């Protein structure tokens, strides 16, 4: 009967089919799933829904979960990952914690041992809901198949509304096999979850507008909330109306165009001198979709000490958590900005003086590197890549460490959701699988993982997924043979004592800090050979003159590709505000 829609279906279905059909009905196009004993029924169902739902097989569950994050972060839609019970489930844990800290809408579905084995220490049993309580927005252990349709509805609702976040659904194998007539219309049962009220009060918006009118040195501190709320346009309008300069968090990069005259670039530990100085000297700090993370603030008490602080965020628990706000607005930041844009006026004071102060800082302390360096500096490689791809739809993912911070500094992001970084948890190994997920969501876009050799090896197995699933991800590998950020701290704060930060064989002189020259003498492993082993393209480059053609070749290559770039290992990410310090401790040389 062609008139039957899903709401009137009365056929008996197995739990696994209900789950997969629910994914399809919620608009999921692709999921990343690694099978095992306790998730097999769900995988069988996935084959039945294959035309509507693509299943990508990662080579490690963590890779799958970061791929789902890549999908979610680049689209704003829910990323879905599935794993089996026990080790499959625990392999997801890092990526779930990562999604929690960066507010990524993620649904993780895990197989679980049959209900009668739960608590019996069965084969491949872990209490994954217990493990994940503190690192998920919400969690379900489904013990009755009749609850499943409602649970799926709730999971999508919770993952995507309010402050987005990860939801785990643990599915015992017998529940996957149980049959029932699903009640697709059963209402959600979430009496404690009321996000629909989070809109600004008119009175609060008036207060914010009044504070802006009185300000002489205002600064905007904007973050991931702008991107999550889809508020980039509203932010742009707000800045155009008020002329207030904008500093961005790592999560906020792309929320405001990098080349805009009011852009102050990145804030915080490795942010621009001018953004940190501006926050330090401002008299009004407008914090939008941010959480006053210690990597931005340094010492909480000293951060924006002289300023009146306006804090707009959807999560009430962020208000006054790390820093007291004078005016707080608990609201979706887009709704708040739209209301504000209706009434806001520029400050009465002439901001020209403030702009000149900032411009002088910009002129004196730009992001810079040694352009005469004989060889390829990391910053140069990123800068060159940025210029090369500027005309194309490009997404950049990164691992964690120096290459991540340099990418944040030297790659210019003009659009939201084009920069993907594990920012809160700082998970090495994020770059390659995240890029994979982006590519699955945007098949025609150029997706580049700018990675370090430490991070890359944490999920290097996903090259197989990239090749086998035809995801032509490019890896620009900044290979310095070291854990560069830790080396930087060793050199700055620990008299250069190398403590397990060299990634080559332990009998090499670099392992004990006795390396000669700027580059590690040998490069281990042979990343080009690894790439080729996975049937990906690969090349290595060490001369500066060869960089541009090598990058061009990478971009033009039809499949996944690894460009192994030899870079020095004692280059430091600057500026730097030491952990727990203040802007007055900033290191610029």
């Amino acid at each position, binding site marked *: 009967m062609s008139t039957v829609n899903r709401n009137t279906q009365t056929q008996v279905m197995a739990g696994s089919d209900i789950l997969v059909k629910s994914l399809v009905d919620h608009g999921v196009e692709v999921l990343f799933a690694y099978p095992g004993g306790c998730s097999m029924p769900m995988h069988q169902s996935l084959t039945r829904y294959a035309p509507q739902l693509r299943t990508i097989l990662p080579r490690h569950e963590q890779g799958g979960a970061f791929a789902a994050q890549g999908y979610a972060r680049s689209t704003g839609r829910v990323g879905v990952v599935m794993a089996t019970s026990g080790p499959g489930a625990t392999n997801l844990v890092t990526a779930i914690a990562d999604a929690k800290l960066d507010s990524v809408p993620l649904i993780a579905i895990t197989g679980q041992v049959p209900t009668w084995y739960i608590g019996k220490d069965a084969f491949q049993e872990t209490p994954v*809901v*217990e493990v994940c*309580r*503190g690192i998920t*927005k*919400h*969690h379900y*252990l489904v013990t009755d198949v009749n609850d499943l349709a409602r649970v799926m509805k709730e999971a999508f609702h*919770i993952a995507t509304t309010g402050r987005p976040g990860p939801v785990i659904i643990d599915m015992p194998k017998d529940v996957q096999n149980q049959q029932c007539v699903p009640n697709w219309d059963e209402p959600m*049962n*979430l*009496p*404690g*979850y009321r996000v629909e009220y989070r809109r600004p009060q008119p009175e609060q918006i008036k207060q914010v507008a009044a504070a802006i009118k009185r300000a002489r040195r205002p600064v905007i501190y904007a973050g991931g909330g702008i991107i999550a709320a889809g508020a980039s346009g509203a932010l742009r309008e707000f800045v155009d109306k008020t002329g207030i300069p904008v500093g961005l968090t790592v999560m906020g990069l792309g929320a405001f165009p990098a080349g805009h005259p009011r852009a102050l670039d990145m804030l915080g530990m490795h942010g621009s001198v001018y953004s940190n100085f501006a926050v330090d000297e401002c008299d009004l700090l407008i914090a939008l979709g941010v959480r006053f993370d210690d990597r931005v603030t340094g010492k909480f008490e000293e951060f924006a000490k002289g300023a009146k602080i306006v804090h707009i965020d959807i*999560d*009430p*628990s962020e*208000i*006054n*958590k790390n820093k*007291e706000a004078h005016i707080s607005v608990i609201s979706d930041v887009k709704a708040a900005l739209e209301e504000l844009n209706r009434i806001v006026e520029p400050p009465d004071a002439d901001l020209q003086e403030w702009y000149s102060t900032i411009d002088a800082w910009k002129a004196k302390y730009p992001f810079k590197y040694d352009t005469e360096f004989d060889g390829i500096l990391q910053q140069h490689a990123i800068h060159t890549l940025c210029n090369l791809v500027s005309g194309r739809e490009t997404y950049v993912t990164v691992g964690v460490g120096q290459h991540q911070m340099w990418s944040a500094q030297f790659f210019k992001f003009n659009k939201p959701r084009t920069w993907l970084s594990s920012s809160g948890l700082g998970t090495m190994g994020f770059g390659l699988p995240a890029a994979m997920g982006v590519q699955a969501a945007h098949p025609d876009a150029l997706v580049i993982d700018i990675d370090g050799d430490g991070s890359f090896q944490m999920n290097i197995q996903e090259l197989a997924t990239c090749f086998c699933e035809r995801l032509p991800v490019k890896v620009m590998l900044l290979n310095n043979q070291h854990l560069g950020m830790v080396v930087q701290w060793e050199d700055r704060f620990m008299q250069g004592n190398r403590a397990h930060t060299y990634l080559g064989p332990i009998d090499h002189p670099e392992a004990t800090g006795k390396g000669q020259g700027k580059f590690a003498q040998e490069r281990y492993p042979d990343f080009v050979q690894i790439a080729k082993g996975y049937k990906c393209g690969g090349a290595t480059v060490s001369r500066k003159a060869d960089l541009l053609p090598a990058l061009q070749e990478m971009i033009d290559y039809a499949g996944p590709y690894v460009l192994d770039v030899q870079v020095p290992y004692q280059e430091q990410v600057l500026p730097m505000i030491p952990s727990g310090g203040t802007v007055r401790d900033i290191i610029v040389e």
Partner: protein
Amino acid sequence: MNRMRHVLSALVQNVPGVLAHISGMLASRGYNIDSLAVGETEDPSLSRMTFVVVGDDRVLDQIRKQLEKIVTVVRVVDVSSHDYVERDLMLVKVSAPPGGQRAEIRELTEIFRGSIVDVGPDEITIEISGREQKIQAFIERIRPYGIVELVRTGRIAMIRSHGIVPGSLGAEMGITSDKVCITVPHGAGTKGIGQAE
């Protein structure tokens, strides 16, 4: 900072794992709980958790918000910011060999409005309820006789009826004012009776 004793009351969904979630959150964020009591409410789908926490206003505000952020937590109220009734129930087994001391213990129990609920050959068990200070005082008085075993429920609390602005708390918690009246019988809410401990 003014570190104050606060009594928080959380209405939560009666589903598995809520207690673990809440206690895990409090522990992982470094909040110390003096007392925690859990039980069903008049609505079997909801449970009530009562916490006693010590902290300044900022800590309290964070605890409240972090609790409210948990999906299964329906509502959190700082009961101690209202006029409220608080109780703790204790069972204490005291060493009492037959003889003169039994009479003393019995007298003490009566003064504190407790009751003897079990008598053994060498021990008696006393039930007593009241505010924390009263329970504490009773423990000190009874200690010299020899406490064999002691168990407490943890504090529970309820806002006094006349303290409720009609439609405020009740409405917030999704409870009609009728239900509030039923759970707090008339008369019990007057200060004189409530504090006659």
